[in-house]
């Protein structure tokens, strides 16, 4: 079971899509809403050096944006 974190906002369409995609594939993940949570924004910025969402952290492998192919590879799906 891989440790997966998703940084996103509730208004971003791709964040919602990514989370749905993970649910559809039975992948458990920590759903981190960075909306109005500057601590979590800082955490995300430190990991990625940038502020775009969604960000998925698959056991330290960081992928910015809903890059389906890369994410599937990282999750070994």
């Amino acid at each position, binding site marked *: 079971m891989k440790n997966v974190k998703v940084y996103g*906002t*509730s*208004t*971003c*369409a*791709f*964040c*919602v899509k990514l989370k749905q995609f993970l649910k559809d594939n039975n992948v458990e993940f920590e759903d981190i809403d*960075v*909306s*109005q*949570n*500057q601590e979590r*924004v800082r955490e995300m*910025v430190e990991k990625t*050096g*940038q*502020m*775009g*969402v969604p960000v998925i952290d698959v056991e330290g492998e960081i992928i*910015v944006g809903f*890059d*389906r*192919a890369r994410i599937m590879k990282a999750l070994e799906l």
Partner: protein
Amino acid sequence: MNIKSRTVVDNKMEKVYDLIIVGAGPAGITAAIYAARKKMDCLVLTVDVGGQTAWSGDIENYTGYQFVSGRELTAKFEEHIKKYNVKVKENEAVKELRKEGGKIFVKTEKNTYLSRSLIIASGKKSKELSVPGEKEYKNKGLTYCATCDGPLFEGKEVVVVGGGNSALDAALQLIRIAKKVYVMNISDKLAGDAVMRDKLESADNVTVINNAEVIEILGRKMVEGLRYRIGDEEKELPAGGVFVEIGLVPNSEFTRGIDKNKQGEILVNSITETNVPGIFAAGDVTDVIEKQIIIAAGEGAKAALKAFRYLLETEEDI
């Protein structure tokens, strides 16, 4: 409809679709639904599903939905197309297309596809400022999507660059989130709908700076502000976020040989025909007079129905 669905190309049997649709925003998806219902063998090639709709904020003028978010409406579109047996290939941008021997060759970064007809519904993308620092700070505090990224700037002072509806829309979203919102506009007054202008003017954390031209984006690891010219003076404005909302440009770079206007929009007639028989276009990528989700959807439907008629008319020729 797919009697002649294979053809010989370079001594290999290649599949020929009835219709390829480039783009999966409201125009592309609606076209795909209509094509599927006409039992056309259809392929959709797109970078993303939803297009500009996905990053729109609040939509109050899509008939039937008095109020819906861009995200929700996009989800509805996606749900609708999933009902039909249409292949939608995402993350696949079209790079080139050409018509040869009655067939249309559509080249992406991954593959080349063949089709008897084509609908270009690739929409528009954000216009860039083209100033130093813009590329460096993209996603490091500079963004083109207030809907997506606004919430990350809570409590900060931010600048929205632009003066039309997109800029007003962004500013209105940000006044609820940011500590302070500057609207930096190159013209002498804000354009955009009166309803939005009024809402903005009545907010207490907004300052509009007119006649101002952004000349550089500043920062260290992340954005820290921008430099702008106002009259003869150059000034700096500190800001924790820069939202670029200066307009849109059509995604039409891959459409060589298809007539466009000065802005790069594909020229179409009222039945979505371009100058190339068999190639149709719909939505914001065209010169359709108004750019609205509901208009794009309507144009997409027209294009699919026109493509269907075109195929019936040309069936004997292939």
